[in-house]
């Protein structure tokens, strides 16, 4: 068997779930891991990914036992206990999640035993075994959610009508995550629902505490988070709607809104009215930019993606359905678990206009780049990828927009490519990359 090597990392390890904890307002992870794990992980999916820095309590603020030789020989649960105890004293936070790294998981420290003591004292603390050898941070994100759902959430006395939890992209790994969640919330609000957003500004423990009162869970992702919404259904009886495509642009966003409306049994007319309004707004700008979209020099007709599955699918749907481009090599790099691959592959079979695409699943970016080097492109290629593709794009005389981790060449605040506004942002960004390239 050939080894699945990873050349050019495009995701990190399970312990990367620490950033999902930090994405909850005033929540903080406590690491039981090696001294350098944290820094490497937040460096890659944080700082070098849209310029997401330490924020309230990330970066070197994160408590960690910093495993030593003695710890890996004798175990270090006593040290962990001491660090947790002092974390409560030193750090001002509302929620804590103890996450283990490889060292602890191999040595076999009984972390659950330590954390349960604090849980018994009523502390808002959970734990998860996230040793990096378990897989990617997409899995790590799921493990963090699993721990919170399982150890922290309490059943609600009654469901709040119209309240919907939104679960979508993995915070930090997707540099646009804050914008994504707030735009999704805005879309739901506009059709009459009350979104509950856990990640990002304004959520926090209050949002977590509302989770079990939701009327339903809305999962917008090809595969990440599916386990979580199933778990919530089993434990709390909350139904879920799984919508695999992150909606970008009018076609997919319209579909998305209609699907949600139907699931939630909303007033059809109101929804249609909103869709028309937003489509008019969208097409006002597209009409105005038609010259640029059609008459600019070196316009690409095809596009290539090297992204995680969420963006691979979302971008392809938009570019095919709304912009009239043709997919030419789509690579998906998020290491989808084997048993989910067929399902995700299926989503790419229908991108709109009767066009479908074959996708290649591999976490090995170096191999992807070699294939692209050997590809004959008929026009200057348009690559939607990561900062790893900067050198390649130059070599191939192509256009590049970094959208998938690592996005080290952009600073990202609250923008996103979601919805109608997001579609416009994406068109702006792609064509700005083209316009600024050849002048």
């Amino acid at each position, binding site marked *: 068997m050939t080894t699945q090597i990873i050349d050019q990392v495009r995701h990190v390890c399970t312990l990367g779930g620490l950033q999902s904890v930090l994405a909850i307002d005033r929540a903080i992870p406590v690491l039981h891991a090696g001294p350098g794990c944290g820094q490497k992980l937040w460096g890659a999916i944080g700082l070098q990914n849209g310029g997401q820095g330490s924020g309230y309590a990330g970066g070197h603020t994160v408590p960690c036992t910093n495993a030593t030789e003695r710890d890996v020989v004798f175990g270090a649960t006593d040290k962990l206990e001491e660090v947790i105890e002092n974390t409560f004293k030193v750090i001002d936070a509302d929620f804590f999640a103890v996450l283990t790294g490889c060292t602890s998981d191999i*040595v076999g420290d009984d972390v659950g035993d330590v954390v349960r003591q604090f849980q018994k004292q009523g502390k808002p603390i959970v734990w998860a075994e996230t040793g990096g050898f378990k897989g990617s941070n997409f899995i790590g994100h799921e493990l963090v959610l699993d721990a919170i759902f399982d150890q922290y959430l309490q059943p609600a006395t009654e469901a709040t009508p119209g309240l919907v939890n939104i679960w979508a992209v993995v915070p930090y790994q997707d540099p646009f995550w804050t914008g994504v969640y707030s735009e999704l919330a805005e879309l739901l609000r506009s059709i009459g629902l009350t979104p509950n957003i856990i990640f990002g500004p304004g959520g926090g423990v209050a949002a977590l505490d509302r989770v079990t009162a939701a009327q339903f869970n809305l999962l917008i992702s090809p595969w990440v988070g599916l386990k979580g919404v199933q778990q919530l259904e089993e434990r709390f009886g909350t139904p879920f709607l799984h919508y695999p495509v992150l909606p970008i642009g009018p076609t997919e966003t319209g579909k998305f809104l209609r699907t949600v409306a139907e699931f939630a049994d909303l007033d059809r007319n109101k929804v249609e009215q909103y869709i028309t309004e937003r489509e008019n707004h969208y097409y006002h700008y597209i009409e105005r930019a038609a010259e640029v979209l059609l008459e600019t020099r070196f316009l690409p007709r095809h596009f290539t993606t090297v992204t995680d599955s969420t963006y691979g699918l979302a971008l392809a749907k938009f570019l095919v359905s709304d912009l009239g481009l043709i997919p030419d090599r789509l690579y998906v790099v998020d290491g989808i678990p084997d048993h989910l691959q067929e399902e995700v592959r299926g989503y790419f079979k229908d991108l709109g206009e009767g066009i479908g695409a074959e996708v290649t699943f591999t976490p090995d970016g170096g191999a992807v780049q070699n294939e692209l080097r050997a590809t004959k492109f008929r026009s200057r290629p348009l690559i939607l990828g990561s900062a790893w593709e900067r050198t390649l794009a130059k070599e191939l005389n192509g256009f590049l927009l970094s959208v998938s981790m690592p996005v080290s060449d952009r600073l990202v605040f609250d923008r996103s490519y979601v919805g109608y506004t997001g579609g416009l942002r994406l068109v702006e960004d792609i064509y700005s990359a083209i316009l600024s390239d050849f002048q």
Partner: protein
Amino acid sequence: MSTIDIKRNEVPIRENRLGAVTGYVGTIGDLHERSSGCGVGNRERCFTQASACSSGCCQNQLASIADALVINHAPVGCAADSVGGNVNFKSGARLRGLEYVNVQVISTNLEERDTVFGATDKLRDTIRQAYERYKPNAIFVTASCVSGIIGEDIQSVLNELKDELGIPLVPAFCEGFKTKVWASGFDAAFHAVLHGIVEPPRFKTKTNKVNFVNFRGSARKEIINTFSKLGVEPVFLLQHSTVEEIRRISEARATVSICGTLGSYLGNALEQYYDVPYVKTEQPHGITGYKNWLRSLGTLLDAEDAVEAHIAAEEARIAPELEEIRARLKGKTAVVGMGPSFGHNYTRVLRELGVEVIWAATWHFDQNYDHGEVPESTKRLAEADESLQVSVGDQQNYEIVNLLAKLKPDIYVTRHGGSSVWATKMGIASYMITDEYAAFGFNGILNFGNVIIDKLTNRSLARKLAERIKLPYSDWWIAQDSFALLNAEGF
């Protein structure tokens, strides 16, 4: 004094080799006196925050060699630093007009079953695939916590493949759990180079090269210029150097370093093994440091006259502007937070500019370098002002924030990603030194002084940010002594 052994495939960590500590608080006088005498005992902490590990320092050094490739024998997370490494690498290449390519770091991607059954097959296969893909001139295999704990026999795999691939295959042992001093990873990288790449000199006479250990080398042009006056040519190591250049560093006239922490091991090893003298003065930051350093190099090269002429001309040239800067910085206070070599050197530089340094924190402290002496920069600082308050901590942010809250300096001068932001959030001006040549010599001190002035002139961002944000620390903690959670020596 520890003797360097480059025949073994692994170098001892700094705690064992250099008496390095990561927990101390006191004065520079005490630190110096005890380091030169019976030694400082490390102080542990009962609360710790994520620091950094040796593997990061090690593999970024090795991966930055232009035609070498790094294989990280670890789960994918341990290779995450290659993302930032790539940004540095490409910017360094751009700075020097070199080929625009990505850094080559490949993870063996260890998974759960590998931790049970071992993964030497995976390593072997990864090396073959990597070689096939990039045809590098050397491959370094960096160890990790996982490979260390499960006892992977990396060396045997490399021995097996050596003839097949015909390039140097070198292990680098930098398991993060082995040391609290991430700079041990620099030694691991240089050791790998000494053990597996550097060859003994081919000729009796030395070349006209001087090994220059640094990071990105932004002052490259200035250095080439100055060195040409001394009749020598710098070879910048390790970033962007080639395997062939490294192979020959044993033939150089001397070795110098921009950072004592970085250069001690390589410099002293080359001196002990191949008679390439290592310049052991303070580092060339600011005026005194630069002069002592250049004079020492000049003596080694028999170029004293050229050095004196250069110094006299430069000193005269910058005098008026330096006076102006000093006048503007008079009475300002600073706290320093950096690695030990940069920290003690920059404290001196700030004092040269007339800034009062009220505290110098360093991320670790080497009680001696590989030639058996206390770092020269520490010694000189202790001579200049033995009462200077110093502390040592491996990026323990809670201590620094507490300290800054008490000391309220005009500026926090630092060198470590993510450290300056905390001062800014407290309304304190800050400057993080990203370029290792920020205060290099006569030009550097002027630039550095001007940056400090700029930072102090408009503090709007810090002030307004501080008004609006809350620090992640409890009031209880901020009211404690900054080192309340630092245990006594021996506990």
